[in-house]
């Protein structure tokens, strides 16, 4: 690349076409990162070690455009809007009965293996059935007292999407 070409590349001519191209790129980026792939920064330890405090990720909103949320999928659950979400893992679907005995998850009375749980857990929670239109979500860090961990059933309508990695 000669000197003149390099200069042109770094300082392009502000033609009308160039301005339109810039506006289109900015608009596309805005639409993509606002409505399709939402950047998030993770605050809190409820999903450790899978998603550590301070991590960054993108929430893919089209994940459930053609399919229903699945068990063991990690999802973003919206609150009043989408600027703040809860990052949790779906452990049970509608109609299923959830229970914790001695730190182990039971679905419909049967124990379930959860390879993503890395820390010891001693939770005990009586059986409860997930209502229609809901899913049951829990964080991966169950090494905290059950009363301090935010989890439970929520409407599928609140699910925004899934983290990209």
């Amino acid at each position, binding site marked *: 690349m000669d000197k003149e070409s390099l200069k042109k590349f770094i300082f392009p*001519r*502000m*033609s*009308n076409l160039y*301005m339109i191209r810039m506006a289109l790129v900015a608009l596309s980026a805005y639409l993509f990162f606002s409505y399709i792939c939402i950047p998030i920064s993770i*605050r*809190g330890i409820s999903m450790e070690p899978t998603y550590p405090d301070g991590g960054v990720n993108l929430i893919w909103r089209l994940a459930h455009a053609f399919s229903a949320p699945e068990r063991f999928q990690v999802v973003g*659950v919206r*609150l*009043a*809007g*989408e*600027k*703040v979400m*809860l990052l*949790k893992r779906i452990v049970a679907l509608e109609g299923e009965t959830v229970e914790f005995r001695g730190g182990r998850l039971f679905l419909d009375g049967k124990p379930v293996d959860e390879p993503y749980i890395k820390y010891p857990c001693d939770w005990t*929670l009586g059986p*409860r059935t997930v209502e229609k239109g809901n899913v049951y*979500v829990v964080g991966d860090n169950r090494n905290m007292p059950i009363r301090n961990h*935010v*989890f*439970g*059933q*929520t409407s599928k309508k*609140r699910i925004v999407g899934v983290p990209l990695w």
Partner: protein
Amino acid sequence: MVNKKNLLALLVLIVAAGGVFYIYQQSDEKKIEKRFARLSELFSKDDLEPALLMATKVKGIGSLFAKNCIIESSDRLRSGNYSPEQITSHAASARALFRTLKLEFYDVEIALSGDGKAATTVTGMISGLSKQGETFNETYEMEVDLVKLEEDWFFSAIRMVEVLKK
């Protein structure tokens, strides 16, 4: 090159945007948003907050609430009717438990009813460091009502929404 006509159009656009922004600043929606921002500012505290500043901020919190504010939460002990003085007292007690506190509001959705009342939904995030050195981070969805009295908006009801039901 960008010609004069385009520059003029850009200038008109900037002036129009400035006008819209100015009108928005005077609207009830903006006043309500500022109310939330003020509550956030007064409730938050830094480590080693001077006593005088603490007293001023705590007193200011009560002044943002209506004469009777209804609080509804899943914790029945906290639910009830509160006067601004009671809010001030509870806020002072809560702040005293922490070395640092940060209250933030996001996604404020405002619906004005036209009779001096507004219903809002908002996400509240509270984080900080306790006197024992424990960090905490809690998030809530809330429905907050406000009433307008002499051009100012006051919080009149706060209902905690149960997003996850154990």
